[in-house]
């Protein structure tokens, strides 16, 4: 066990965990920030996507010891009132079915638009390809990313 100081959603948080603990479980178990989801634990499904210094990152294979004071943003911190353009587009298109993958989808999409505000259809598909949706909402995901990119 060791103490780590993290910068999460603009707040400083201290946790005492094993240095190998992935950020996903620190968020979920220690900090009770359960918006970030567990889907595979091996960086294949994207359910656990967070922003690390603004870049979409899989938190399930990111040990706390490697994070230092880099800025972490989770779905809970994406916007104050749930009104990030990507969140708004997701609601308007009514993307979710079960909804479980959607926090990860939104974190991937919002990082994409941050870096590339006007992605082409191909760029959207390519970037969103890392996030699995078992319910098959891919067509709506693309539409919502497109809508958010225009706003």
């Amino acid at each position, binding site marked *: *066990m060791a103490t780590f100081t993290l910068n999460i959603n603009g707040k400083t948080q201290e946790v005492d*965990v*094993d240095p190998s*603990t*992935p950020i996903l*479980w620190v968020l*979920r*178990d*220690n900090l*009770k*920030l*359960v*918006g*970030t*989801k*567990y*889907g*595979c*634990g*091996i*960086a*294949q*499904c*994207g*359910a656990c996507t967070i922003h690390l210094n603004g870049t979409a990152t*899989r938190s399930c294979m990111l040990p706390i010891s490697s994070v230092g004071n880099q800025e972490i943003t*989770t*779905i*809970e911190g*994406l916007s104050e009132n*749930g009104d990030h353009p990507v*969140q708004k587009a*997701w*609601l308007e298109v*009514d993307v*979710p*079915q*079960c*909804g*479980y*993958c*959607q*926090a990860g989808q*939104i974190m991937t999409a919002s990082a994409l638009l941050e870096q590339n505000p006007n992605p082409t259809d191909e760029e959207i*598909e*390519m970037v969103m*390809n*890392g*996030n*699995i*949706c*078992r*319910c*098959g*909402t*891919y*067509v*709506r*995901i*693309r539409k919502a990313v497109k809508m958010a990119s225009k706003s």
Partner: protein
Amino acid sequence: MTLVKTKIGRRAFIRNTGLAGGGLVLGFNWLASCKMTPEQVNSMPKEWFELNGFLKIGDNGLVTIMSPNPEIGQNVKTAMPMIVAEELDVAWKDVIVEQAPLNTDIFTRQLAGGSQSIRQGWEGLRMAGATARQMLKEAAAQAWEVPVGEITTSEGVLTHNASGKSAGYGEIASAAAGIEVPEEVELKEQKEFKIIGTDRMNVDGTKIVTGKPLYGLDIQREGMLIAMIVHPPAFGMKLKDMDAESVKSMPGIKDVFPIVVYPEDAEKQWSDGGAIAELAVVVGNSTWECMQAKKALQVQWEEDSKPESTAYHDEALTELLNTAPKEAARKDGDVEAAFKTAAKIVESTYSAPFLAHNTMEPMNFFAHVTSEKAELLGPIQTPEFLEMTLVSVLGMPKEQIDIHMTRMGGGFGRRLYGTFAVEAAVISQKMGAPIKLVYTREDDMTQGTYRPSYKVRYKAGLDENGNLIAWHVRGAGTNDDLIFENRFPAGAVDNYLAEKHSLQTNVTTGAWRAPRSNFIAGAEQAFMDEVAEAAGKDPIEFRLELFDRAISNPVGNPEQNDYDPERYAGVLKLVKEKSNWTNGTSGKSRGVSAYYCHNSYVAQVLDLTMNGDAPNVDKVWCAVDCGIVINPLSAKNQIEGGIVDGIGHATYSAMSFKDGVPEQSNFDSYRLIRNMEAPKEIETFFVDNGIDPTGLGEPSLPPISGALANAMYKATGRRFYKQPFISDKPPLVG
């Protein structure tokens, strides 16, 4: 308005009037109560009045509607309350939806399965709204001393035109709660609907996109421990021994032990299918610590039954296809004689592998079992059956067991089998502490309860004019006999023979989104395409001819046929028109398919271009007849999801076994369809016929693999008989 007796679900209304009479009803469930904004808190009523088990009305006019059935992503949590709200005649913006807990005194069939929630809930939900509305009218009539027949309602307001009196539901709710349940109520006509048939956003949408706790895996409780299990590494193995001591001292670990989940005398329900009787358990403070201990734990296993491999399943199923069963499932005319006279014979065999459900949220459940009470909370499609099993396994009466359902990160049939919830309960009982059982993805994917593997052989005979004169289908599946003998084309062919076999295996299987239909529809519709081609006919015209036959001169007893040929032909004609079938899209290859299952009719046309070996699906047109559509916005989402899911599994996914050991255990070895592989566009069209609604969670999935195979044939000149059509390893991402 139509006058209807309030018999359906009357239990729910009667029982509750006893409790009502203006009492304060408190208590939002834990998920709904998390962090309301100040505006939300201010707009909450001071008192709630329960009019029946489905709804309560606040003194300010807000209405809480209980959604009785489990929500697995099929969106009943929005659709079911919409039906209640419609008949109650309130504005949708004034409705708050809560997930009802299991309550067999009030609700019937609290189950998510078979696409039946809307179909079977329809009348009861309408009654719930309509009786409450009637009680409000009665109460207003008494208060205003006017005849009840002169009172009208609209969007939560009662009005008596002659006297000019009016009041919101909130003002009358207290008095209405004391009114006797009416013997008869008026139901709206379809043309009077203001909510049903309109687009309404998912009631949990905001919580989903902001990451609020909604799912079983998100549950946190004071003093809660995490539990994980180790199950046998192969089918046919059972627990022999384990070295618990060496991992007990690992950081954060509370206890490590073997546990008998199902004692030999346990009374099991069908929902305990796939149960593993004894498991190794690790309990600790955190998920990560439990995962480490689980990895380090040494467990010895022993053989229980002979381990099986995929090669064996394949051979055994083929052998069954080569064997005539003792009895036919259905026999009309004489296929053998007809084949002798046929001008052309077409024969093909189709197959598909085992599939895992792979809900994105792995299996999990919270349980807190004490000597007085068992509290269970989590993702379960069959809470009522879970309760029955718990009565036996925990040795506790039903009254002491409380089951609450969370929103589920997918179901697809997997959470019909609540063995994981039973595991959570017995672990909590042993620990004497609240625990949350968590499966890793690997636990989840290798546990079993798979979609069975299947093989089917078709043989069809055509006369010299290209008329279908004989149809023989023989199917086999692992623990499942695959064939629906009374479905199309039964009833449309003079000589028809359906035969089926089931191969007993120790790899556990269960219902997987649209059981059996998920494979047989695509196989049948791909074969139908081969037969139409041999007949020299357009594939849609060929099918329509058969439906004409089933309409005008059905073979056998038409009651026996499990479909309505007119509605079936209806969706085909609609998709033909919408897709501009006759002219097609230039440069694209197209295929068609149609199927009826779970009481709904679906026809699809699919356009694709090949990208090497892989299909690039440009567009899918989908015509659907599910009667009245409750919420078109999410109904289309279900259709789209089923299409993507069906294309994905037929093209990419498979579970295989070597000596009982699953060869896939996570998404690096099990391939699921991804964004780039999904159709570019899906357009859905509903038949508007005013028939009572049927479900949509399953029906769009089964036919699509047929449309896909038929279009791939057009593009490549090759028929695709074996799923998955592409058997590459998944691409690594991330």
